[in-house]
């Protein structure tokens, strides 16, 4: 919630009270719907209305969240407990499901985290330099080069899956970390460059002028001015990259056959095949795999939502 919206609502409330004050001053009968009685009954009706709204929203939320709750609940059960009490939680909680699941998905976790980390570093390094240059320097070909980056926003990665696979095979990179990391950088860096350029373009010119008077060179301005100021964009970009790594499915499925190098999405699909109907450990694994994104969502929901909507924190509210 931005401050702006608060301001908006406050003014709106002020307007409402002004309107109602005027309404109550009006003699009865002049405004057929604005009479004192009508207003009181309306507010009683609206309280019931509010209750109904909350009820319906609550129902929607329960329906939407129930599958995940069920997963969480079942993750503590043995198959016997699962069969005996399908819908209800049971005791004792079988925490060993989690250790069993962790054993199996731990390598996927490590791979995913390494891939996400390397992709973030690569993306931020390339995009922040390029964003700075595009925003603050004048050079021949600036528009064309920037246009070439923007154009890539239109190309979904799945469309170049086949030629990309052949390229990686020709380079002998299948079954390596590189084959997981590089395409992630190449796809994240596009939006990241656009966001960085927009952001750096909005930094007041006075800051750059002052830095120049103090004798700062281009690289120095980048390091001491642009980078610290663009932390919100870097945050969004990093989060977006993590989300991508945790959701990208077909690419790691096709280029990785070595179990240790599987990322979470593909690893989980494989893990499911391994635990066919061992629901407890299976759901414990799903829960563990979701944890990193859930934590990020809980603590950084502003950036998270900005990432989902492809903008900067605050713009999407």
């Amino acid at each position, binding site marked *: *919630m931005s401050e702006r919206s*608060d301001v*908006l*609502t406050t003014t709106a409330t002020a*307007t*409402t009270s002004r*309107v109602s004050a005027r309404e109550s001053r009006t003699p009865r009968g002049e405004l057929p719907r604005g009479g004192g009685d009508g207003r009181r009954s309306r507010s009683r009706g609206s309280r019931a209305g*509010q209750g109904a709204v909350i009820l319906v*929203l609550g129902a*929607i939320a329960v329906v*939407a*969240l129930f*599958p*995940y709750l*069920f*997963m969480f609940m079942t993750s503590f059960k043995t198959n016997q407990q699962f069969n005996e009490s399908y819908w209800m939680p049971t005791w004792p909680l079988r925490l060993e499901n989690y250790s069993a699941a962790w054993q199996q998905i731990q390598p996927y976790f490590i791979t995913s985290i390494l891939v996400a980390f390397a992709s973030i570093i690569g993306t931020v390094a*390339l*995009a922040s*330099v390029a964003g700075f*240059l595009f*925003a*603050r*320097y004048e*050079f021949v070909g600036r528009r064309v080069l920037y246009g070439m*980056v*923007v154009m890539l*926003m*239109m*190309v979904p990665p799945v*469309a*170049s*899956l*086949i*030629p990309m696979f*052949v390229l990686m095979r020709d380079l002998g990179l299948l079954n390596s970390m590189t084959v997981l990391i590089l395409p992630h950088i*190449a796809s994240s*860096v596009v939006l990241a*460059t656009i966001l960085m*350029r*927009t952001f*750096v*373009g909005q930094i007041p010119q006075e800051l750059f002028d002052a830095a*120049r008077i103090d004798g700062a060179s281009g690289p120095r*301005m980048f390091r001491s001015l642009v980078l610290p100021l663009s932390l919100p964009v870097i945050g969004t970009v990093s989060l977006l990259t993590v989300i991508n790594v945790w959701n990208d499915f*077909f690419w790691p499925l096709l280029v990785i056959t070595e179990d240790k190098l599987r990322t*979470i999405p593909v690893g*989980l699909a494989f893990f499911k095949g391994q635990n066919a*109907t061992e629901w407890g450990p299976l*759901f414990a694994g799903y829960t563990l795999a979701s944890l990193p*994104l859930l934590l990020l969502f*809980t603590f950084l*929901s502003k950036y*998270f*939502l900005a990432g*989902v*909507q*492809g*903008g900067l924190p605050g713009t*999407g*509210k």
Partner: protein
Amino acid sequence: MASPVAERNAPAPTPQTKGEARRRRRFPWFVYLGLLPLFALLGLLAYYPAASGVYHSFFDWRPGFDSPFVGLDNYRTMFADDLWWDSFKNLGYIFLVSVTVMWFFPLLAAELVISLKSERLQFVFRTVLIFPLAFPGVVTVLVWSFIFDPNDGMLNQALRGIGLDALAHNWVGDPATALPSLLVIGFPWVASLPFLVFLTALQNIPKEVYEAASLDGCGRLRRVLSIDLPLMAAQMKLLFFLATISVLQFGFAAYLVTGGGPDNATQVPVLRMISIAFEGSDWGYAATLSSTLFAITALLSGALTLIRRKENPDVRAL
């Protein structure tokens, strides 16, 4: 989409007046050097694969061996490939559902959230409703594939529990119900981009408009139809195009839950392309299919960009 905002706000750092110095500045070697790594990467992993895909669609592509030129043969095969076109029929169905039913619930939820008087409750419900978005897509799909499980699945258990045994069946194994089942994944679809877009749009409608309407005796439903929907037309248009593009990429849920089966009932272009390349090893034909998908998406995104240029800039294709 080159946004003019940044350009206007950001003149070159040193407004050199001397003509000579200025001319030198226009080819600053260090700028090109700084951009080199970015374009090297994009060249290798974005421009080259796209070009190579289109190029090799005219060949009987056998990576590692010699690949004879076959002209338009692959495209002819594509036009005769019933499975490929049937998979587009499935896409059409998916698209229809995703811009109607899959928008209804998010719209309903957004309208309800905006009707809440308490700011705090609005925030709580918004957060709770989008919470499922925080789960990795794979987890959501796998949990739903459990819901559809014929024996232990939640859906059949619930049906048996209330005595409707007759209705319980193998939801994703029956060609008649497989595709609808896939689309039900994530029900009620509120944790989604449409919800966030609707909610933001509704929050941005000035309160005065609603007050004026309610003074005129405009009811809640009337308000949705006559005020909210028309005022959201721009966002709707945008979501509509985003939906076309994301539907074209539909595939990973189908791969995990049904694998395109049963009897190709859930076959989609992406799966068809992958199976031709990796099971049929017909790389030239796969490149043709991939270039076709590429062209369709590029066309749609081009149209989207034209629309977006005028409107809401902070939503992008997912």
